[in-house]
């Protein structure tokens, strides 16, 4: 079935949506879609059917988010840890993914109408080659769409993502594009798989579990976390509204915390730049102390050159990523 369900809101749903929209609304919501298997048990159906219904719910929820003006959704579809499941279940999930990504390639018109851009985040080299190729095609097919964004985390864990970001920065150093002192919180964020998205405003986990399970650990540091006991295949418009309401209640505190954090980041960067300049001047120095004005000028020059370096590095990184999907390959042996 389709990636984005046609789902009109009923009168009372529309009323509720309008009331909610009078307050601050999240622009980016992340979902840990937990509970497919428990749902299958409850409904006395096969696990595979539970996962299938889970996908249907994803399509419907994406539509509901659009109805609420939420234009970016990130979902945790398959964790690297899930490879530990039985071969039967893993194969079933890979087959479901093949079906869905193939389907995506056939409903181009529908996706274009809604302007849906689909991205897949994770270590895709861990997937079967044919699935890698399907995903690459799907991502390219919707790349130009920009009305709403669906980020599917597949073969993903946050720790892998963070370690990969560090690896990319180290690659940048190897290539002579950046210096180790250019490494910062902001730069690390730009090297994550999710660098094209703002951080999620709201993270929702269903099925009653109250942990993050290695999902978007870096990006959700200042997000509103909502844990709901409903099983994912049973997720409703009302559950979504409940979560958004929780977001609205925490909004002010989170904005303040976020602003404070960003201020801290800016101060840290300035301090780091000052240290680098001081070091440079020492090396270059002829013993004469520099006046405040010249020091300030040196600082501005240094900051500008650092930003230029980082800009080039990020372009090179983007280029590397753009060409990578065309080279599906087997995963390296190490973990």
């Amino acid at each position, binding site marked *: 079935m389709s990636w984005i369900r046609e789902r009109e809101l009923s009168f009372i749903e529309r009323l509720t949506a309008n009331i909610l929209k009078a307050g601050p609304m999240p622009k980016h919501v992340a979902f840990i879609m937990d509970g497919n298997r428990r749902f299958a048990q409850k409904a006395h159906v096969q696990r595979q059917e539970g996962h299938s219904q889970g996908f249907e719910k994803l399509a419907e929820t994406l539509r509901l988010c659009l109805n609420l003006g939420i234009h970016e959704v990130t979902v945790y579809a398959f*964790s*690297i*840890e*899930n*490879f*530990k*499941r039985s071969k039967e279940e893993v194969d079933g999930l890979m087959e479901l993914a093949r079906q869905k990504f193939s389907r995506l390639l056939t409903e181009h018109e529908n996706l274009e109408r809604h302007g849906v851009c689909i991205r897949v985040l994770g270590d895709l080299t861990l997937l079967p080659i044919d699935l890698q190729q399907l995903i690459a095609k799907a991502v390219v097919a919707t790349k130009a769409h920009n009305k709403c964004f669906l980020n599917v985390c597949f073969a993903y*864990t*946050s*720790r*892998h993502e*963070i*370690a990969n*970001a*560090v*690896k*990319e*920065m*180290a*690659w940048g*150093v*190897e290539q002579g594009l950046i*210096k*180790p*002192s250019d*490494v*910062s*919180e902001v730069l*690390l964020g730009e090297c994550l798989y999710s660098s094209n998205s703002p951080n999620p405003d709201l993270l929702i986990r269903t099925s009653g*579990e*109250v*942990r*993050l*399970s*290695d999902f978007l*650990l*870096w990006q*959700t*540091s*200042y*997000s*509103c*976390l*909502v*844990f709901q006991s409903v099983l994912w295949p049973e997720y409703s418009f009302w559950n979504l509204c409940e979560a958004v309401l*929780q977001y609205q*209640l*925490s909004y002010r*505190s*989170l904005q303040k*915390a976020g602003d*404070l*954090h960003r201020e*801290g980041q800016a101060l*840290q960067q300035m301090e780091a730049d000052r240290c680098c300049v001081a070091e440079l001047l020492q090396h270059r120095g002829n013993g004469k102390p520099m006046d405040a004005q010249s020091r300030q000028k040196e600082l501005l020059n240094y900051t500008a050159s650092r930003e230029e370096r980082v800009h080039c590095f990020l372009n090179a990184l983007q280029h590397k990523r753009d060409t990578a999907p065309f080279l599906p390959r087997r995963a390296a042996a*190490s*973990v």
Partner: protein
Amino acid sequence: YNRYIYAKMKHTHAALYLLKYIKQSVFRRNNSRLMEGILKQQQELLGMDSSKYSVEFMKNGTDKQEHQVLSCQSVVKVLSPDDGRLSIVQAAQQLCRAVELKEKTSKDINVTVLDSLLRESKNIPDPDLVLKFGPVESTLGFLPWHIRLTEIISMPSHVDVSYDDLFGALQRYAMCDQRLGK
């Protein structure tokens, strides 16, 4: 403001690592008062046994032991927001310097390498449980790397928290079923 108390229960021992996390503005201003407060509470609650428990202040950087440990059954570590993302950034800088000096290559960097580096600088075990006090539903930057499997239980307020409240939270924790991906 929120305070976060993180408890790790070992199955075989009753040892508790309490990681206390205070928001930046409070921490910076009331550092010494906070220390006084903790020590006073220690004496009041633990009485004769208070010498068995050490309190460490972790400020981003060195892991200095400020008090002599006589017998370590319980550890209280007080963290700040800088111990979160910033620690990961510092580890990243360290790895990048190693790469610059050709001591490592970028291909050598993976989860295991980053994890051991983080543990080297700050010996904080992954919390099993986060007790979050206050109405704000967020981790506010608390140890993002370490909390990947941590159960997060919310409590309404840190003011007048009773033993029963705490015990109730631990009971909830005991009912959590971690499938670890399986």
